[in-house]
């Protein structure tokens, strides 16, 4: 269909559109009320005139007749406009009312302009998050206009179809929108949303339609069925638990179709709805009940009533097995006799477990009821509980057909979010389509510990109430991202100018805290930039690295600096010494053990701090099955704990450290070789010595080699550590002079090729600070003085080299070892 065809078809709506443009629906409503009030005043006046002869009767009658006539004209015009407005719901016009408005307002030489000034186009513009100012920019920047377009032929062409065709034909519009972050998908999404809103409003307005009238429940529907007194004491009607809306009906259509087909069978027509908590199990059941109310259900289930059993109350109300079983049988017996009841048992596995604590087995007790064709049962369960408790019992499997809840469907969830946004925004707030998308994406990617669609719906509620409390009139994509950033600490969305500069100069920033290790610094910088620019995969951790190198050369420090730079806190680091997980029970200590009632260390640490750096020290020392667990984590970014709960590691940077090839690295560096040139040899050595399997090595984004610190590097570390002491002393009013002698002393006594520069900090805290504190106490140094560590002081310090091996906080003094000696 081309524009000319559309124009001719739109002429049909011409007068109705004009009236609507002249006096809009809300204004007609107000005008109608004013005229009605005038008629009433006139009638009161006529009555008063007849009774008391107060006014000029003829004039009063004339005034009333005139007001009534105007009111009737308005009524007729209203009916006329609505008849055209709702035409697509009762007939099949070639175009819809709102499209006709777009077309008739369009100048054929510039179709985009017509679209953008129409009410449909304006709504799309606003939903895209664009402002009137953007429209001016668009007009100012455009080079050419589009005067012809073809819309795919359909029974009725609506605004959405037209808008998409226009978008495809108008390159200028497309390019302009692209600069505002609107691509094909976003444009189509916003257009569909506006179309759904308009169609939904029309359907809701027509209260006289059969679809609306059938929602009013009739009387006497269950007079031929009995009353289930016992059930009603312990249950509530499913329809009273959830307000079922049109979109909810659409959202759960597939699940409810499946439910309906299972329940309309003969014997054992029961279903178990399997889905995570929060995936809308109760909503789906309410939609099923709603279908019965609206009589759009298979004849076998007509007149049925759906009751949700309050299993907690049922268990709590009974202290003995006998009493509990007696009530349970009464409930099911009564329900069976009424012949029109569907009983819902929420969390069936939990109910069976709780009943077992009373010594009862409801499955045995209710066998006859589950098999009776007159009674239907819908149970619900989480997938894990289903596997644990239900699928292992062949009888339960036979009685209950499984119906799965689909919980992460982009289109369906977006629709739900749109509906919630419309319901919450009111007149003073507008939620843009990119914001809705950001809510979906953030909920899926960054918010752990919940199930779709609940996580996304909760986030949208939170975002809207925050926007309202801040007095904003729009919820934009950026606003959603900032809320998620505050919640998680993870920077998302587009980087601002300052952050962009920071990312581009990341190497310099990291080098302020890390001495040397250029390769490592550039590898992690690249990973951060990839993650921040959104190029990295959302279904993997933010970065996975293997840091190889001798002890004390800055591997852990690099991880800490990374946590500080990316997550804004050095505390956002989970450190696990993998050498402690080298026994057979390693895996169960990490992911938990159901039998022992133990939660896993890794699972709880990640759940407590899902946005952090996970540091796996001495990774090669753990067991094969732990390596397998991490193989999955590196690959998919998630794992399941022993209880079957999904643990999300996608918002983490994972760093495994190892000193497996330290000797090789040391000898290569000692021989003056360039480490990077021997990277493959070192990796081959790791594989040949069985430290790591090749598939595990392949899962790392990068294997980063840390070279042993040179004397210059060590001196730099010493200076940095002394500077920290200087700051601490300054705070106490004492200056501190960092002398070359002191630095040299630290380099000489604090560095060891085997253990790196680790001992430097300990010499400072153990020896240097001891000397200074002694001087402070004896009054040798007072406030305002400058503390200097003299050569005599250094000579008086303990002679043995205090380099120590540190393992998980336990310091072990190592015997005299001069720098350069090897273990």
């Amino acid at each position, binding site marked *: 269909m081309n524009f000319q065809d559309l124009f001719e078809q739109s002429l049909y709506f011409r007068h109705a559109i*004009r009236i609507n443009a002249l006096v809009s629906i809300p204004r007609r409503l107000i005008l109608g009320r004013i005229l009605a009030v005038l008629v009433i005043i006139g009638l009161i006046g006529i009555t008063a005139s007849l009774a008391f002869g107060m006014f000029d009767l003829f004039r009063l009658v004339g*005034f009333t007749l005139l007001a009534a006539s105007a009111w*009737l004209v308005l009524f007729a015009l209203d009916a006329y406009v609505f008849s055209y407005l709702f035409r697509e719901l009762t007939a099949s016009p070639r175009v819809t009312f709102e499209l006709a408005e777009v077309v008739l307002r369009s100048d054929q030489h510039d179709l985009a302009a017509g679209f953008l000034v129409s009410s449909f186009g304006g709504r799309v513009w606003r939903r895209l998050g664009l402002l009137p100012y953007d429209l001016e920019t668009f007009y100012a920047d455009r080079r050419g206009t589009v005067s012809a377009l073809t819309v795919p032929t359909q029974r009725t062409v609506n605004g959405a179809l037209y808008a998409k065709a226009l978008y495809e034909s108008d390159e200028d519009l497309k390019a302009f929108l692209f600069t505002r972050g609107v691509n094909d998908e976003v444009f189509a999404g916003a257009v569909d949303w506006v179309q759904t809103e308009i169609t939904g409003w029309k359907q809701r307005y027509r209260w006289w339609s*059969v679809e609306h009238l059938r929602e009013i429940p*009739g009387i006497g529907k269950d007079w031929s069925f*009995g009353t289930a007194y016992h059930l009603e004491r312990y249950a509530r009607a499913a329809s009273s638990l959830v307000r079922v809306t049109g979109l909810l009906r659409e959202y759960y259509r597939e699940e409810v179709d499946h439910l309906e087909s299972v329940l309309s069978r003969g014997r054992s027509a029961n279903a178990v709805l399997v889905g995570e908590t929060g995936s809308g199990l109760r909503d789906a059941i309410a939609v099923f009940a709603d279908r019965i109310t609206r009589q759009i259900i298979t004849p076998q289930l007509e007149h049925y009533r759906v009751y949700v059993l309050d299993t907690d109350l049922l268990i709590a109300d009974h202290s003995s097995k006998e009493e509990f079983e007696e009530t349970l049988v009464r409930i099911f017996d009564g329900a069976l006799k009424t012949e029109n009841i569907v009983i819902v048992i929420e969390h069936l596995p939990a109910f069976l477990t709780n009943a077992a604590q009373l010594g009862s087995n409801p499955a045995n007790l209710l066998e006859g009821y589950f098999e009776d064709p007159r009674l239907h049962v819908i149970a619900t369960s989480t997938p894990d509980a289903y596997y644990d408790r239900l699928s292992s019992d062949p009888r339960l499997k036979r009685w209950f057909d499984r119906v799965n809840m689909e919980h992460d469907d982009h289109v369906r969830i977006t629709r739900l979010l749109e509906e919630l946004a419309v319901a919450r925004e009111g007149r003073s707030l507008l939620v843009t389509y990119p914001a809705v998308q950001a809510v979906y994406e953030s909920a899926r990617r960054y918010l752990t510990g919940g199930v779709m669609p609940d996580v996304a719906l909760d986030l949208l509620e939170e975002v809207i109430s925050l926007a309202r409390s801040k007095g904003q009139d729009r919820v934009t994509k950026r606003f959603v991202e900032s809320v998620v950033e505050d919640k998680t600490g993870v920077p998302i969305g587009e980087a601002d100018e300052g952050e962009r500069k920071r990312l581009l100069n990341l190497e310099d920033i990291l080098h302020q805290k890390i001495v040397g290790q250029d390769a490592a610094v550039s590898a992690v910088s690249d990973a951060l930039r990839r993650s921040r620019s959104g190029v990295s995969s959302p279904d993997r951790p933010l970065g996975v690295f293997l840091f190889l190198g001798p002890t004390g050369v800055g591997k852990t420090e690099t991880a800490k600096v990374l946590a500080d730079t990316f997550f804004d806190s050095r505390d956002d680091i989970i450190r696990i010494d993998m050498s402690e997980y080298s026994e057979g029970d390693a895996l169960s200590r990490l992911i938990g053990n159901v039998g022992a009632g133990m939660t896993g260390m890794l699972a709880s640490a990640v759940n407590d701090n899902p946005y952090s750096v996970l540091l796996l020290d001495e990774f090669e020392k753990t067991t094969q099955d732990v390596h397998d667990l991490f193989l999955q984590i590196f690959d998919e970014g998630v794992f399941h704990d022993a209880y079957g709960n999904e643990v999300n590691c996608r918002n983490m940077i994972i760093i495994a450290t190892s000193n497996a090839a330290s000797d090789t690295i040391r000898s290569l560096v000692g021989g003056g070789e360039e480490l990077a040139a021997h990277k493959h040899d070192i990796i081959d050595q790791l594989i040949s010595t069985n430290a790591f399997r090749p598939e595990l090595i392949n899962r790392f984004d990068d294997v980063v080699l840390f070279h042993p610190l040179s004397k210059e590097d060590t001196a730099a570390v010493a200076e940095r550590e002394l500077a920290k002491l200087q700051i601490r002393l300054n705070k106490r009013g004492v200056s501190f002079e960092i002398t070359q002698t002191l630095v040299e002393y630290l380099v000489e006594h604090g560095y060891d090729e085997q253990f790196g520069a680790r001992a430097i900090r300990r010499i400072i805290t153990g020896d240097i600070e001891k000397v200074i504190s002694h001087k402070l106490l004896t009054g040798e140094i007072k406030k305002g003085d400058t503390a200097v560590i003299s050569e005599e002081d250094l000579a008086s310090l303990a002679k043995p080299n205090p380099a120590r091996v540190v393992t998980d906080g336990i310091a072990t003094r190592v015997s005299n070892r001069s720098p350069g000696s090897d273990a």
Partner: protein
Amino acid sequence: MVRAILTRMRAQFFLVDYVVWHYTRAMRDGARIVRNLVWFCFHFFSIALLARTLIAPFEKLGEQYPQGFHPAKMLSTFVVNILMRVVGAIVRLVVISIGFLSMAAVLLAGVAAFVVWAIFPFATLGAGITGVLLIIGV
């Protein structure tokens, strides 16, 4: 030919389009609304269902027949159950009657609305002109 001219005139002149709409589509839409409301009465008062289950016991109330041969008890149960069915039938008949009455009322109101709608333009015009004349005192 005539149809084409009429279509063109309707697109051109509001008054022509309005009059044609008033006496064709508006009346068809009105008839559809009346039909929906009549259907609603039928549905709301569950006429089909209640007629089908006219003599079923009300809410399945009744007594179980005793086991063994106890003529007196059996008779009393029989009487109680028959009574329940009679009560059920009476209640249902009342509701069915109300349902039919409402359907008739809606239909009548619909017919009246049609008549009013048919004279609506004239009545409105008449009221307006009369009003103006009375105000200016002619």
